[in-house]
């Protein structure tokens, strides 16, 4: 336990006090445990290895508070930000679900509703309020557990599948707002679902988004996540996805950070059924003084599983990036095939990336490969493009699009991939 006279601890106490007014979600033992953990757990500062490059100190300096539930969805923001995407919708403003702007699937074997509704209807047993105990290990997890507001509850019975993806759009508006969305996805055996997690924020928005998603993917089931962060304003965004996979299941996530003042993505996947396959792909293109951190954990605990991890970053201006990819291959996880690649282009002299692959392998009959590169644009390729009449800016754009192309290609929805490409083109002047 940290000493109470520690500046960061005092700041954290003040910060957390501002969250107290939120409407409780009703997961009472989770929030009790969260509150208790907040009093005990150290605040993530530079002194902790896991938070060395992304201390939350800057966030703690500005107090935040929960915003009241909005009367309606803001008119100026499209509830579905992806042109052409045909999807069910669960939409939130500042952590609150806006029911009239939602569009929920109704089908046999499918339960899809706001998490608050699932709690009210008694669909979550008291001992089953969380699946990972993250809030007992990390201060940021405890913040969400103690102050979770609302989010997606998606549960598919064995053998069912959704005919369209579910879009979960979280929008932040207003200054110094704290949002703590919490999502829960459970796929029965052989069930299939695609979810698009989209976060946006208005120009004047500031504060914290602290989002948690827990998912269980049953035997033979497939879950795909297209996660896009496109936040204007100045938001400190802490996201955590915790996924547990059963036998011969597939989990795929694409994490695209298009824009965000300060972003920390934490992704943790546990394979506990043999023959499971995991895809973790992502791209980040911060500019200005933005900060993007991707911390991933791939935990192979059983035999015959595979994982493919590919993160690509281009860092402009004075932006900073972090990639930390941890891969465990436990003693029983023989015949694991794990691949990890992180490639970075530092486009400007003031930008930087801290990249760290971490492999811990305890089984002896496995195939694990990893690679990490940090470089600049290939001058020879640039000259080749220019020698055909293509201007410097357009040549760089072509190369950037090529660089992140293999990340965008594998996304679940081509409409989402196209929209990400066009937002990036607009933002970086590639048009």
């Amino acid at each position, binding site marked *: 336990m940290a000493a109470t006279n520690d500046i960061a601890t005092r700041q954290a106490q003040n910060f957390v006090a501002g969250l107290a007014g939120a409407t409780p979600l009703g997961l009472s033992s989770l929030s009790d445990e969260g509150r208790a953990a907040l009093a005990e757990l150290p605040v993530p500062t530079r002194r902790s290895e896991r938070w060395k490059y992304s201390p939350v100190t800057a966030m703690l300096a500005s107090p935040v508070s929960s915003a009241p539930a909005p009367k309606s969805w803001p008119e100026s923001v499209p509830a579905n930000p992806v042109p052409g995407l045909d999807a069910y919708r669960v939409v939130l403003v500042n952590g609150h679900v806006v029911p009239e702007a939602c569009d929920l699937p109704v089908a046999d074997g499918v339960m899809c509703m706001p998490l608050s509704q699932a709690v009210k209807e008694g669909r979550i047993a008291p001992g089953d309020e969380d699946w990972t105990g993250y809030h007992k290990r990390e201060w940021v997890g405890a913040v969400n557990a103690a102050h979770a507001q609302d989010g997606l509850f998606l549960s598919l019975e064995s053998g069912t599948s959704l005919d369209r993806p579910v879009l979960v759009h979280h929008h932040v508006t207003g200054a110094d707002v704290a949002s703590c969305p919490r999502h829960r996805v459970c796929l029965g055996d052989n069930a299939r679902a695609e979810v698009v997690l989209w976060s946006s924020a208005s120009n004047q928005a500031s504060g914290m988004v602290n989002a948690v998603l827990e998912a269980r993917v049953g035997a033979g089931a497939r879950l795909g996540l297209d996660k896009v962060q496109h936040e204007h304003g100045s938001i400190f965004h802490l996201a955590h996805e915790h996924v547990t996979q059963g036998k011969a299941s597939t989990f795929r996530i694409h994490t695209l950070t298009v824009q965000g003042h300060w972003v920390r993505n934490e992704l943790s996947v546990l394979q506990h059924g043999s023959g499971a396959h995991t895809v973790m792909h992502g791209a980040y293109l911060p500019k200005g003084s933005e900060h993007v951190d991707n911390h991933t954990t791939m935990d192979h605990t059983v035999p015959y599983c595979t994982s493919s991890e590919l993160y690509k970053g281009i860092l402009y201006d004075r932006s900073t990036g972090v990639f930390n990819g941890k891969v465990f291959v436990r003693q029983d996880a023989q015949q694991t095939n794990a691949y990890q690649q992180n490639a970075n282009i530092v486009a400007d002299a003031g930008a930087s990336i801290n990249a760290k692959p971490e492999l811990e392998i305890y089984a002896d009959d496995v195939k694990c490969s990893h690679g990490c590169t940090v470089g600049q644009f290939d001058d020879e390729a640039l000259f080749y*493009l220019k020698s*055909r009449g*293509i201007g410097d800016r357009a040549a760089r754009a072509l190369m950037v699009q*090529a660089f992140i*192309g293999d990340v965008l290609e594998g996304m679940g929805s081509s409409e989402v991939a196209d929209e990400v490409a066009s937002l990036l083109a607009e933002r970086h002047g590639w048009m």
Partner: protein
Amino acid sequence: MLTINNLHARVEDTPILKGLNLQIGPGEVHAIMGPNGSGKSTLASVLAGREDYEVTAGSVDFDGIDLLDLGASERAREGLFLAFQYPVEIPGVSNLNFMKAAVNAKREHQGLEPIAAKDFLAMVKEKAALVELDGRLRDRSVNEGFSGGEKKRNEIFQMAMLEPKLAILDETDSGLDIDALRIVSEGVNAMRDAGRSFLVITHYQRLLDHIVPDFVHVLSEGQIVKSGPKELALELEAKGYDWIKEPVA
């Protein structure tokens, strides 16, 4: 078309071109031969605008424009084309998108609208046929996984797409087997006309059997030391370069 006057250029501190003079008229094909290290590829790079080279003296007039004052992409839009000795692989950039961007950059420079998709595809089909570049190669990433011959055919395809006023072929024959050499040469010959000039840089006479030049120049130690009709190439092939390096009275 091109007038090079007293051109001096260096890489870092090493002077390579030491007062080169050359004049190419419209529709003419000039060949430059010379031993390794004489400055042939440097000349191509300096003309195309590669930034590693510093021009320390001299001038290059390209159809009334001060070429040395332009960046690489501007030179290309003005109608200069360099077929690379070592074409670059660019994973992820499709050959067609690349060519579309290049064609449209030139059209924009000429004050024209971007080319219509249908016209572009028709143009690709026509130009690819010149060098027998099949659809598979057109659709792939630029030069990625291409054989040596395929890369060179892709260079000539690009040249045909961009219809330059002056094309510089930098050792286009290197790494080519007899069939590829024939295909590449036929592609070049099909593009010869009264308004388009060529500067063919090569080590060997054999390319000049296929692309018959109007003039042959010998480059040695950064200067053109001998010029003559196409028969000069045969003489060089037979005698080597040593006899020319002697000072000419």
